[in-house]
């Protein structure tokens, strides 16, 4: 029962928020709801690791005539992503308190609605329910970005919407097609879909459909064109939701559906997909170096990071897949941290252009320290969370193919180049007229960032706990390929 509760709770709170008017009350209630959700998720984690490793399954026949049932549960991979979601949402809500958004009831209501959809995606064990939540997540994301976003927001978010809508509909067709290839009685449950019998040609088509659906969402080069614009134009919390959690839906979908269903087609088309992913890594890293807008720079860095995860997933090595799962968590934490810092700078100084900034460290030492820690996590310095994921991913890639691994390894260097260069140009050097007015972090802002800092070191120093949660399930998924 815990899993459906995790989905219903944010929905109820979000409906409640839509009815309220007072901004202060709305904020507090939104934060409270997100924290209760987090406590519930921790409870699920304790139950899962403590005594049963069971699936926490909930099953209710919904549309029997089409073999759809409301099937929710959590295995290790789901659990980690649910933890990530429920942890990041309160942080994102807390980080938005400085800024006053118009129509707060709708703003926070939509954030919670989005949380519901995301948790739904990560806990569905039925293909169609997975699709429903997947699509549902798009609507609040669209409105958050389009209503509260920056310049040219309508055109940009609409492009994002249409692009991802196209991808998801392809997935719907593929799911229905698979449904008819399951054993009788046909069913949409993941277990049934995994056992669907396909000819090699069908397998290739299914693989292509799922690849496109998820690649657009992640996004993987060359389907990434919506991403930098959307991240830049969205309001801070919107960007954090998209980059921190929503793109993980894509990688999660690959692991959950594409890998087990791809079968032999994966062996023939996998290398092609790895090449796309690695091309994206190098391409995005090179572009990131030249960016002037901090948010845009981080957006491109994100394409590079997810490219590495994608490449790791397609190597079909347990170790790389393990790395991809850990890296999903780490990347979510790091990128949300970076966007929060950028948001703080922008609110104080009214700009996030790198050339306008400089010498912030002298005025705001705490901000600089937090920024540095998150940045080091993001460029995968040993002892931070980013290192664990990237190390495992590169190790897996290395076992797969040395050349690919070496090219992908370049990202670590390039990542250091653009990130540290950004740090140097914004935080160090002399202050200018504008940055004279910089103030340091307030107490609330520190509280917002501290959970992220703790996790950066926790995952960096003791990754075993996190790795063990997902390991058996990753092995299970890989065993399905063979």
């Amino acid at each position, binding site marked *: 029962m815990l899993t459906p509760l995790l989905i219903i709770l944010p929905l109820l709170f979000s409906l409640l928020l839509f009815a309220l008017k007072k901004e202060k009350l709305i904020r507090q209630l939104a934060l409270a709801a997100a924290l209760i959700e987090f406590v519930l998720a921790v409870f699920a984690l304790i139950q899962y690791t403590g005594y049963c490793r069971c699936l926490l399954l909930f099953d209710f026949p*919904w*549309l029997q*005539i*089409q073999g759809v049932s409301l099937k929710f549960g959590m295995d290790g991979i789901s659990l980690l992503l649910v933890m990530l979601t429920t942890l990041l949402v309160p942080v994102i809500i807390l980080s938005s308190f400085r800024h006053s958004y118009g129509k707060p009831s709708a703003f926070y209501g939509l954030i919670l609605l989005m949380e519901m959809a995301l948790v739904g995606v990560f806990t569905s064990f039925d293909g169609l329910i997975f699709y429903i939540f997947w699509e549902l997540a798009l609507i609040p994301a669209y*409105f958050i970005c389009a209503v509260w976003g920056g310049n040219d927001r*309508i055109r940009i978010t*609409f492009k994002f919407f249409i692009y991802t*809508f196209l991808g998801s509909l392809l997935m*719907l067709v593929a799911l229905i097609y698979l449904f008819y290839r399951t054993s009788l009685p046909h069913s949409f449950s993941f277990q049934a879909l995994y056992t669907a019998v396909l000819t090699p040609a069908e397998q290739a088509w299914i693989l292509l459909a799922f690849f496109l659906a998820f690649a657009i969402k992640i996004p993987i080069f060359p389907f990434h064109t919506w991403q930098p614009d959307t991240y830049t134009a969205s309001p801070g919390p919107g960007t954090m939701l998209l980059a921190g959690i929503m793109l993980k839906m894509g990688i999660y979908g690959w692991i959950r559906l594409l890998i087990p269903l791809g079968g032999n087609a994966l062996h023939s088309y996998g290398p092609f997909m790895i090449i796309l992913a690695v091309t994206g890594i190098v391409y995005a890293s090179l572009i990131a170096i030249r960016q002037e807008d901090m948010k845009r720079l981080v957006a491109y860095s994100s394409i590079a990071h997810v490219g590495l995860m994608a490449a790791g997933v397609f190597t079909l090595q347990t170790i790389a897949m393990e790395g991809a799962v850990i890296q999903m968590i780490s990347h979510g934490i790091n990128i949300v941290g970076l966007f929060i810092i950028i948001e703080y700078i922008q609110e104080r100084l009214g700009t996030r252009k790198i050339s306008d900034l400089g010498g912030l460290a002298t005025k705001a030492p705490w901000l600089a320290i937090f920024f540095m820690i998150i940045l080091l996590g993001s460029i995968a310095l040993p002892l931070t969370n980013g290192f664990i994921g990237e190390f495992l991913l590169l190790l897996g890639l290395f076992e797969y193919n040395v050349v690919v691994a070496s090219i992908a390894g370049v990202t670590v260097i390039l990542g250091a180049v653009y990130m540290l260069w950004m740090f140097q140009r914004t935080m160090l050097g002399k202050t200018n007229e504008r940055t004279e007015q910089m103030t340091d972090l307030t107490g609330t802002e520190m509280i917002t960032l501290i959970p992220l800092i703790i996790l950066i070191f926790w995952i960096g120093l003791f990754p075993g706990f996190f790795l063990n949660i997902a390991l058996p399930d990753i092995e299970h998924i890989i065993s399905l390929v063979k």
Partner: protein
Amino acid sequence: MATIICLSVMGVLILFLGILKKRTLLLPFILAGMLITLAIALMEWNSTGAYYHEMLVVDHLSVAFTAVLIVSTFLIFSFAGHYYRQVRRSLDDIYAIMIFALVGAVMMTAYGNLIMLFLGVETLSIALYVLAGSHKEAITSNEATLKYFLLGSFISGFLLFGIALIYGSAHSLNLREIALFIAPRANHLPPMFLAGLFLIIAGLAFKIAIFPFHFWAPDVYEGTPTLLTAFMATVVKTASIVALYRFFSHLFTGIHGVWEPTLMVLAILTILAGNLTGLYQSGLKRMLAYSSISHSGYMMLAVIAFSSQSANALLFYTISYSLATILAFAILMLVRETRGNDLFDSMNGMAKTNPLEAFCLTIAMLSLTGIPPLAGFMAKFILFATAIGNGLTGMVILAVAGSVISAVYYFKPVNAMYLKKGDGVRMDPEFSYKVHILVLTVLLVLTGILPFFLTGWL
């Protein structure tokens, strides 16, 4: 059968009420009468049979779609009070003609003989010609009725000619007997029969607004009074597509291959033509006209899929399409009335002045796009599942591409209302109107999340 009698009596009574000048009693009488008729129609569920030498056949298919037609008409009537509140004269004639049109529509779902099909189509059409021109002072309404009448009567000739040709080769107009005629000749049907078949397809395609017989729809929709446009877009379309489905499902089991390619091409072209032209519209009403054309294409998929699931898929699709379309037209009425036109630009900033109406229209648009968990998504899902289950994967991929295109224009009003700033005045509809649109919105959501109530009946 009882439904048709009941509705006809009701139409006559409405005219009497008009003579007696009981204007205020009209709508309550109609709404109550519709509910009673609905109950009578549903009671026939267990007493199926054929009447008058199989002229009319009452089976589960006809009962279910009769119920859909009655409910749609009921919902449209529930906005009539709002729509006509400034009209001083008695409206008994318009209401009675609507009811008579509904009689024709019900006949089209229950015919067992091609003559009854023609009678149904004509009863419906002649009533519609009058309704389209019922706003006599407006030149657009006159234009609409003239266009509709000229084209419609011309195409009725096609339909009748087709029926005659079929009679000439099969020597019967009874569906069952025609089926017996084709069964042994599946591979060498006489050319006259085939010509008749395609003429009937053309006649019905005009009513459903299927490419290339769809050109009348946008102009006629544009000029017809909005309340009656809603009637055309939902009741008429549902009745005609059911008539088409009945025609094929009862008759042509053996010769699936003859008509399937034709319908496939028509369906795909309808979806693409409707959606692509919809992109270039700047007003809500014309946009809804093109949306209704593209939805005819989707409904055709169910007919083409030709399986035991088709009727189910069609039922769910027509219900969800009708709910969303009626809701959209209800809000269109309000927009036209207060802002003078229905251009998307004049809807700018509506979310601020009229949050409830903006929200309801958004739900209607999202449902028509097919966003879960709304009714429109479940309808598309069941439809696509039916089609893919019968090997139409390629068509479904094209239909999906059409869906993506349609999202672009369905989001135009949503973007205008929520994302653009406008200085339009606040619209202030009466309380009952607000309740009605809210009920429709809730129905759209409920149909989407509790689809099992509406599936598995047929």
